[in-house]
């Protein structure tokens, strides 16, 4: 029972490089989310998806793009990495989303990304 799996776990990039973070869930969840976590700031929502083929902007979407071609996968892309994007990135999924606000979000173990 894998739950939410994120790859890679660690990555170091140079400014201007691009990369894609992969999130996979095996719980048949409709909703998927990408967050970034910075010290003292909790988790901030970057983008989310309410179902296969859909994406929407969260609180801090600039500099990131996402795709949800398959229900189980949610990809986060950085087209031109900047030092300000150094962070720990978490993917999460839930069976349903708002307004069913009792749904828990299931998180992966994170990707630690450093931009030099």
């Amino acid at each position, binding site marked *: 029972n894998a739950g939410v799996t994120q790859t890679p776990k660690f990555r170091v990039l140079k400014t201007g490089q691009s990369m894609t973070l992969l999130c996979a869930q095996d719980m048949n969840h409709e909703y998927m989310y990408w*967050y970034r976590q910075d010290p003292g700031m*909790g988790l*901030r929502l970057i983008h989310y998806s309410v179902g296969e083929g859909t994406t929407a902007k*969260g609180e801090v979407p600039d500099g990131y793009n996402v795709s949800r071609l398959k229900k189980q996968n949610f990809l986060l892309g950085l087209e031109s990495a900047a030092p300000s994007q150094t962070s720990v990135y978490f993917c999460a999924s839930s069976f349903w989303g708002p307004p069913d606000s*009792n749904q828990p*979000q299931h998180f992966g*173990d994170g990707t630690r990304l450093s931009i030099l």
Partner: protein
Amino acid sequence: TQLLEQSPQFLSIQEGENLTVYCNSSSVFSSLQWYRQEPGEGPVLLVTVVTGGEVKKLKRLTFQFGDARKDSSLHITAAQPGDTGLYLCAGFHNAGNMLTFGGGTRLMVKP
């Protein structure tokens, strides 16, 4: 400016002590969740509170949602080293479509 303010940011106590962590906002939330996160892992849901004034207990942890649904507290009785971690509160607004997280309280319980 964060919509959810958690206090304290850091807390270091001895095993057996009691503690309370607070989550405050000027906004009303339709529900509020508490998560615990351990190093190198993602947050894990502890509880969801929905009704103003609601109190939920999870073993030695007691969660309360404020009457006006603007604040919440987490009380731990007789803390143990296994309680060490980052505690995050997160709330849904009535008209929102996103879960808003507080900055977290990092708790260390020393044996």
